[in-house]
């Protein structure tokens, strides 16, 4: 469940994945209706039940409980732990007037825009675009390295980055000849942004590589012969065809980055809360300060922001679908 990791992709891409272009030879309809094995509704429900039970217990129920807890003054310890009171919207009042909350919100937006929307998507696309016609060792090496950053466990890669950025013995300082620069203290936000670009670019690279496979080479060739530069080719030939993939990609990496807890392992929110993005903020409020009710209220706000992000992208996707229909 860490936001970005191997083949999260598949789940996500399916969101938009198929646009249901009717094809000869495609299975009839969407697979519904033809009950070939004679399951019947009741037995089908039985097949679905175990999975639904787990999903309801450990996904839906916690989500609803979060909403309820956000209305109480529930604490990890002390009097309010045994006897939480419903305090209505007090937690939300407090959050919205809390400087630390708005600070965290701004940081999260910086983190998402900088590392996901600009960083991962642009870098991933650039690699996919430049490698599109290549075969052989160079392409395999580049792809393997980018993928390696993505598939290694997050605990491992955070240590790799701690080693890279260390003040005294770090590789980066040795390389840049800047001894004594404490990157994680002096440029904490930039550090976690670059870190997250490094960690997650693989997903965008693979998605765009697949998407570029859908752009007929003959069209690019025609455009090139007509004198179109790279920028014009991208704007006029490529982007109109992969717009759906771009939106899906941005939706998924935004959500994943928004909910990513990994930077906590690098900076623990510091120094002076300068990298206290939303998941870290909730963790510190709820489990370090023990204010479970307040933490839950912020969780709800975070869910709402997530939902807004998702709905904006969905709307863009649908508009696009209607426009092309």
């Amino acid at each position: 469940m860490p936001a970005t990791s191997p083949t999260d992709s598949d789940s996500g891409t399916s969101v938009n994945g198929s646009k249901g272009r009717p094809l000869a030879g495609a299975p009839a309809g969407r697979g519904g209706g033809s009950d070939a094995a004679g399951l019947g509704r009741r037995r089908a429900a039985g097949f679905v039940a175990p999975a639904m039970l787990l999903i309801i217990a450990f996904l839906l129920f916690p989500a609803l409980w979060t909403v309820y807890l956000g209305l109480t003054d529930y604490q990890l310890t002390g009097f309010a732990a045994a006897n939480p009171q419903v305090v209505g919207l007090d937690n939300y009042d407090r959050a919205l007037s809390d400087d630390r909350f708005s600070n965290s919100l701004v940081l999260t937006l910086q983190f998402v825009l900088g590392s996901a929307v600009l960083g991962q998507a642009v870098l991933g696309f650039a690699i996919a675009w430049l490698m599109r016609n290549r075969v052989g060792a160079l392409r395999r090496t580049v792809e393997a390295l980018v993928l390696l950053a993505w598939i290694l466990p997050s605990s491992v890669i955070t240590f790799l980055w701690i080693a890279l950025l260390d003040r005294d013995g770090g590789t980066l300082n040795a390389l840049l000849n800047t001894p004594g620069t404490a990157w994680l203290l002096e440029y904490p936000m930039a550090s976690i942004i670059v870190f997250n670009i490094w960690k997650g670019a693989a997903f965008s690279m693979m998605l765009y590589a697949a998407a570029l496979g859908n752009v007929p080479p003959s069209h690019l060739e025609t455009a090139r012969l007509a004198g179109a530069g790279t920028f014009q080719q991208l704007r006029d030939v490529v982007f109109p065809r992969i717009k759906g993939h771009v939106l899906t990609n941005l939706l998924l990496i935004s959500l994943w980055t928004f909910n990513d807890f990994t930077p906590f392992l690098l900076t623990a929110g510091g120094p002076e809360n300068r990298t206290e993005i939303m998941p870290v903020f909730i963790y510190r409020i709820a489990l370090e300060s023990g204010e479970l009710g307040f933490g839950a209220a912020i969780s709800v706000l975070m869910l709402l922001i997530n939902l807004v992000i998702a709905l904006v992208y969905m709307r863009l996707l649908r508009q696009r679908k209607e426009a092309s229909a």
Partner: protein
Amino acid sequence: MTPPPAHSPDHAPGAVPTASDAAPVAVAAAPAGPPPDAEHRRREAQRAAGRAGARKAVAGIGFYTFVSLVLAFFSLPLLWLAVAPFDANPGLSASLPEFTLQNFRVLWDNPYAMRSLGNSVILAGGTGLLVVAFAALAAYALSRVRLPGRDMLLYVLLLLSSIVTGTAAMVPLFNLATELRLIDSQLGVILVLSGGLLPSAIFILKDFMDGTPRSYEESARVFGASPFQIMRDIVVPVVRPGLATIGVWSVAQVWGNFLIPFLLLRSPDQYPAAVVMYTFYTEGGQANLALISTFSLLYSVPVILMFLFVSSRYGFRFHGGIKR
């Protein structure tokens, strides 16, 4: 909200140019100007060819510069993982090691290190099995029988699972585990992780199931096989690549997960590798680099092997719904 998109078959529609396909090409700038005579046109073409050559050279330089930068950016942090475990005296900078295997021996003697790898195997394996089994049953039923509200349900769950991935629901998950006495229990971690992974797993598997032909199931039914037999003897073998994908995906997710075990487990001998890494300190309170780097390598090897296996077997590419 729209219902989830229709399934599309694995084969891409291919390059079947249609009228609308050709349209955008026309945009590509043709030089505007007075109606050109033949001479003018020839000169124009020459100049364009010269420009193209220069552009090509610049593009070549740009390409290799960019690729070198990308290679450097992505390999630099990894260097340390490659050299430090074999270094007799590892620091934080990647340098030529004084070669030794001593670090592996130290690790082998550390009581928590090896056990935590075992714990990771238990958590990842347990979750993988649970997710594959439950997702297969559910995906099959949802693929073959139209239950009311099916599409909406799948879609909402998928959205929810990408949103409520642990961090936002941290507090209630912790409470729930406390109430169910699942704190400090590996079963608790397995159940919580499975609940989070199942929606996506069902979604991916349903795509696979939709793409398989029904005729085998129909003939088996004619010969009197029960739905469960059909599932076991026909459906499972046919969708095995899908099941493998889901299995590998779940294992990779759990293998790297830090937050849930960190939240729910209390005693150090239950910790998986992801959590134990943060407990390696020397007596002086310094991070024990020899132990950490060596452990990182051991901890990474299974995912790398799994990745190599999957990519050689199935190709580590998007498939299923991605193409269109």
